[in-house]
C-alpha cells in the first residue's frame, strides 16, 4: 500500500530540533511531514533528567512539544519510519518513506497497555535505559511516549497470543507489513541529531569492562523521575554511591578517538548532574576531573560557580587510566596539575565518563549533503547561515550540524524554519501561499 503526500517541508528526525523546526514551519502555515525512526518522538532530550542552567524538568519542557507535533493540523507525523530514498531536484524532491511494522495497528491502539501487563517476556531496555531497565516484548516505548502506541519486538516474540486476547481494541496484527509513503516536498530539513561517543572507545577508561564505570546518559536515567530505579545506585552491587568521580573529555578533544573538537555540553551536563546528585545524596563527595571548564552560555558561568559553592570538587587534570580494586571501586590515575604535578591514584565508588557527541547520521549518500571533516553536516557559510547545507532546498538544524546544547538546538530550529520558509516562498510563489492561508483562515473562522 502506497500513499502520496504533497508538502512544503519534510523534517527528518523528531528530536527537540526537528520538533521545534516542524512546529515553527507548521505555525506559519506550511505543510510539514515529520519522520522519526524511533517509535516515539522526543529524541535524546526526552530521556534527560533536567536542563542546565535552569534545572527545569526535561520532560515538562519536551512533552508538550511532543504532543504539539502529534496534534498539529499542518504536521503529518510518521514515527517508526525511515526515509528510503530521495530523488528529484532542488525544490522538488520525491522522498520515499517506509513505515516499519509495529505489529500493532496504530489507528486502533488506545495505549491502554493491557497487552504489556500480560506479556510474559522482559527484555533489557537498550533504547531508552542503556540496558539498565527492562521492557516487555510488546510495549509502549516509555511513559511519556508520543504516540502512546504499543509495538512488538517481533524478533523476541514467542507468539503466545496473550496480548492478542488482552487487547481491548483488536489492534494486534502479527502479519503487518511495511508501508510506504511517497512524499513530494519543496524542502527538506535534516535534524538527525547525535549519538554519544561509545563509552568503551577509550580502552584506558575501562568503560563496558569495569562495572562501576558508567557514562553520563546512564546517570541521566538514574536522575530522571521516569528512570528505571528512581534512586541513585552503582551497577556492581546496587549500593548508593558516596564518592562519585566525573571524567571530563572522555570522548572529546581526543585525537586517539579521532575526535578533535569540544562537544560543548559535557562540562555543563556534568556540573548539572553533580548538582542533582549532591541534592539526592547530600553526604556524597563529588569530584569533576577536567582539562578546562567550558561554561559558555548565558547563566552557565554562574551555574559553575554555584556548583563550586555547593562543595563539588573541581580537579584540573585529564584522567589517564581507570582501574578497579577488589570491591570494584574505580581507581583514577591523574596528574594533579594545580597541586605540584603530583601523580595520584584516587579511589571512588562510581566513575562517570562525560562522553561527547558524534554525528548521528551521515546524510551524504542519501541526500547528497556532504559533511565536514568532523562528520557533522557541512555548511557553506557556517557563520552567517549555519542552517544551510551544500545542497539547495536541504537544510540542517540541531546537533546534526555540530555539537550543541538544547538551547542552541532550539535556536537553530527557529533559524532553519525561517530559512526553509523563505526558500519555500521563493520557490512556490508568494501569492499561492497567501491564497492558501486566506482560505484556511476562512475555514477556521
Amino acid at each position: 500500500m502506497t500513499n502520496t503526500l504533497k508538502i512544503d517541508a519534510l523534517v527528518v528526525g523528531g528530536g527537540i530540533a526537528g520538533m521545534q523546526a516542524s512546529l515553527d514551519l507548521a505555525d506559519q502555515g506550511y505543510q510539514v511531514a515529520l519522520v522519526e525512526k524511533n517509535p516515539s518522538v522526543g529524541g535524546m532530550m526526552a530521556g534527560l533528567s533536567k536542563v542546565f542552567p535552569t534545572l527545569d524538568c526535561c520532560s515538562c519542557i519536551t512533552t508538550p512539544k511532543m504532543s504539539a507535533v502529534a496534534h498539529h493540523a499542518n504536521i503529518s507525523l510518521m514515527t517508526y519510519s525511515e526515509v528510503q530514498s530521495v530523488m528529484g531536484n532542488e525544490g522538488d524532491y520525491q522522498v520515499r518513506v517506509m513505515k516499519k511494522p509495529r505489529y500493532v495497528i496504530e489507528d486502533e491502539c488506545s495505549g491502554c497497555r493491557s497487552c504489556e501487563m500480560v506479556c510474559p517476556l522482559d527484555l533489557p531496555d537498550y533504547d531508552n535505559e542503556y540496558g539498565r531497565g527492562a521492557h516487555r516484548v510488546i510495549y509502549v516505548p516509555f511513559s511519556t511516549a508520543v504516540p502512546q502506541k504499543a509495538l512488538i519486538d517481533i524478533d523476541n516474540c514467542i507468539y503466545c497470543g496473550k496480548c492478542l486476547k488482552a487487547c481491548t481494541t483488536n489492534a494486534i496484527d502479527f502479519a503487518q507489513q511495511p508501508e510506504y509513503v511517497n512524499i513530494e516536498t519543496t524542502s527538506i530539513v535534516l535534524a538527525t541529531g547525535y549519538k554519544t561517543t561509545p563509552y568503551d572507545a577509550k580502552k584506558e577508561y575501562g568503560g563496558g569492562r569495569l562495572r562501576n564505570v558508567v557514562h553520563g546518559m546512564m546517570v541521566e536515567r538514574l536522575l530522571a523521575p521516569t528512570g528505571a530505579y528512581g534512586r541513585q545506585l552503582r551497577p556492581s552491587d546496587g549500593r548508593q554511591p558516596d564518592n562519585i568521580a566525573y571524567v571530563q573529555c572522555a570522548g572529546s578533544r581526543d585525537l586517539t578517538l579521532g575526535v578533535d573538537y569540544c562537544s560543548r555540553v559535557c562540562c555543563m551536563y556534568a556540573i548539572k548532574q553533580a548538582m542533582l546528585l549532591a541534592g539526592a545524596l547530600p553526604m556524597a563527595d563529588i569530584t569533576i576531573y577536567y582539562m578546562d571548564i567550558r561554561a559558555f552560555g548565558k547563566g552557565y558561568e554562574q551555574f559553575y560557580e554555584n556548583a563550586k559553592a555547593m562543595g563539588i570538587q573541581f580537579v584540573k587534570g585529564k584522567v589517564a587510566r581507570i582501574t578497579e580494586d577488589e570491591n570494584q571501586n574505580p581507581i583514577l590515575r591523574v596528574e594533579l596539575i594545580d597541586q605540584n604535578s603530583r601523580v595520584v591514584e584516587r579511589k571512588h565508588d562510581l566513575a562517570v565518563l562525560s562522553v561527547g557527541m558524534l554525528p548521528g547520521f551521515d546524510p551524504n549518500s542519501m541526500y547528497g549533503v556532504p559533511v565536514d571533516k568532523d562528520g557533522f553536516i557541512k555548511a557553506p557559510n557556517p557563520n552567517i547561515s549555519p542552517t544551510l547545507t551544500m545542497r539547495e532546498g536541504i537544510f540542517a538544524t540541531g546537533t546534526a550540524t555540530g555539537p550543541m546544547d538544547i538551547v542552541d538546538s532550539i535556536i537553530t530550529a527557529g533559524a532553519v524554519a525561517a530559512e526553509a520558509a523563505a526558500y519555500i516562498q521563493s520557490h512556490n510563489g508568494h501569492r499561492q501561499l497567501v491564497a492558501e492561508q486566506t482560505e484556511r483562515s476562512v475555514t477556521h473562522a
Partner: protein
Amino acid sequence: MSNRADPNLLKELKKYGEAEIESCFNCGNCTAICPLATDETPFPRNNIRMVQLGLRDRLMSSLDPWLCYYCGDCSATCPRKAEPGEAQMTMRRWLTAQYDWTGLARKFYTSPVWEIGSILFVSLFMVWMFVLFAGPMETDHVALNTFAPVQRIHYGDWALAAFLSFFLLSNVFRMYWLTLRKDAKAKIPFLLYVTEAWTLVRHFATQKKFEKCDENQKGFFQKKRWRNHWFLVSGYVLMFAMVVGFLPWFQTDNIYPIYHPQRWLGYYATIVLLYGGFDILWGRIKQEHQSHRFSHLSDWIFPILLLLTTISGIMVHTFRYLDLPLATYYTYAAHLVILTPMLVLEVPFGKWSHLAYRPLAVYFQAIKEKAKQRQEVAVGAVAAVAATD
C-alpha cells in the same frame, strides 16, 4: 638559575626530532599514564611545558629526559598526538648536545652532512693508518699479528680509549655541573655521593628502570625491551673490555679449543650484538613499537654501524678459520675502519653517550632527592625546636 624565557627554544628543539611539542595542551595525560613518573620527577608534561615556555636553563638542568625509557604509553594515549615520548627522546638528543662542550654533538644531531662526513673522515683516517703502519701480508698462511701487530693495535686502542674517555668524562662533568651544581635546590653533602654510588653501579649493570616500562609483564625474559637491551649491553661491555683492555689475549694467531674462554666469551658477545643490532634495526623498519615510530638519522647510524662491525668481525674470524690470508687481512682492516668511527664519534658525541648519562641521571636524581629529604628533616627539626621554645 635563571627563569628567563627563550622564545627560540622550541624552534631549536625541533631540529633534534619530530615531536609535536607545540600541539600539547597540557592536560597531564602523559604524566599520569607514565609508569616511571614520580612526585619528584613528574615528566613528560613538565619538560614539554618548559619547552613551550622557553625555560632553557630549567630544561638544561633537568634529569627527567634521562629517566624516561620510552615505553610509549604517553604517545599512544596523547589526546593531541603531541608525541610526548618522542619529545623526551628529542630532549635527550638536545641535552647530549648541551653537555658536549666541543659543539660536535650539536653538529652531528642537526646536520646529516656533519654526521656522515665525520664518520667517513675517521674511516679514511683509519685506512690511511693501515697504509702507513700495516705489516707485511703473509700469503701462505694467516698471520694476522704480522699484518696488524697486536701491540701496535693495542697502542691504538689506548689512544682511542683515552680520546673517548677524555671527551665523555668532560661531558659528564658538564652534566654534573648543569644538573647538580647549577640547579642546587638543596645543599648536597659530599657523603651522599659516596653512599648513593651503589645506585650508579646497579643501574649501569641492570638498567632496571627499563623494567617498569613493561608493567604488564612479569619476569626478566617476558619484559622484552629490557631483556634485549640488557643482553646487548652485556655483549657490548664484554667485547669492549676484551678489545680495549685485553687485546693481546683476544687477538691471537693460534686457534684455541672451543671451551677456552677466549672463544666462548667472544661467541657470546658476537651473538648478542648481532641479535641486538638486528632487533633494533628490524624494529625501526617495522615501526611496531611506539618508540620506533620516529627514527632520527642518529637512530639508524647506531644499529647499522654496530651490525657492520659485528658482521665484519665474524668474517675476520671465519676467514681465519678457513685459512684465507688475504681475505682475513682485508676484512680485518674493514672491521677497524668501521669500528673506530663508531667508538670515537658515537660514544662521546652521539647516541651511545647514553651509556653514561642514563645511569648517572638515576644516580644524580637519587642524590638530589636524598639531599632534599635531609633538608626537609633539618628544617622540620629547627621548626620543632622553635615551637618548643
